């Protein structure tokens, strides 16, 4: 690349009295190019596995998150909670980091006796937010998913590949995409996104 890419990191959040402040993968690193890219810091994530046909599972998820199960490949949101369909027996619940222990305890109590699993994976993932009208264009450079307007819209969660690593993303607004990947590849994904969003790299097909 002709121009050096500068990635800035913001200061970590102030430590709480009870627990040390969570340290996210890239400490809130951000980049501004074709779109604005920001590592979202510490985000709460609970992975849920169970039988979607089981009433006990559905009502446990509903009582803990306030949300109904999303349809295939869908993502639903309300009151700071986001629930995404990951596979026929897997959901991802995204919520504020500090609320994870409480919600997890409620889930596990409600799921007692069910063949199901609820696990805190907050520190095993990294979350990015892409802001700008070319956000889908940046992702389309990295993924084989069909992201053309009309083929990918708000409400759909797409698990796919970004270059060589798995990732999942969904639109959180007309010009905003939220994305997560494994924490161990957060630096690699930030490198991908900053390269794909480098100024002058506009494709302009859409």
């Amino acid at each position, binding site marked *: 690349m002709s121009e050096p890419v500068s990635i800035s990191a913001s200061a970590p959040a102030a430590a709480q009295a009870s627990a040390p402040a969570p340290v996210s993968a890239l400490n809130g690193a951000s980049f501004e190019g074709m779109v604005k890219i920001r590592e979202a810091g510490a985000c709460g994530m609970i992975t849920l596995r169970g039988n979607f046909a089981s009433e006990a599972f559905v009502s446990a998820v509903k009582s803990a998150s306030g949300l109904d199960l999303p349809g295939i490949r869908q993502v639903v949101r309300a009151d700071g909670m986001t629930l995404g369909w990951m596979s026929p027996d897997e959901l991802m619940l995204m919520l504020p980091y500090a609320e994870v222990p409480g919600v997890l305890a409620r889930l596990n109590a409600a799921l007692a006796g069910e063949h199901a699993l609820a696990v805190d994976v907050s520190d095993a993932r990294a979350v990015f937010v892409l802001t700008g009208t070319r956000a889908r264009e940046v992702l389309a450079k990295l993924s084989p998913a*069909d992201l053309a307007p009309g083929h990918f819209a708000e409400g759909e969660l*797409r*698990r*796919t*590949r970004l270059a060589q690593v*798995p990732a999942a993303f969904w639109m959180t607004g007309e010009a905003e995409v939220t994305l997560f990947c494994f924490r161990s590849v957060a630096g690699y994904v930030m490198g991908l996104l900053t390269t794909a969003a480098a100024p002058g790299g506009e494709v302009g097909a859409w």
Partner: protein
Amino acid sequence: MLILECPYCGVKAEESELAAGGEAHLKRFGAGSTDEDFEGYLFARKNPKGVHFERWRHAYGCGKWFLAARCTATLEVFGTYPAQTAEPPADLVAKIKQKRPEWEGYK
């Protein structure tokens, strides 16, 4: 480019989002089987020029294994279906027979 529709999540997945798993509908021979059966299970494959049933995994997507019927010569995809079955669905077999009258059939 090969595109297979994942029967679980409905994504029309491009090949690089998938992992190939070889021939489908193999009968497993394990402990207690004859040497010939075990060898056949491990090594003998149909490898046809034409209609082939295969295992694929939606590796970068929902993570599930599914099965696909396609032509190894033209890459035409006849269909995909969930892996929880011992043999191809009857409607898919009928569809392939209609398209390839010379096909000797599954088995």
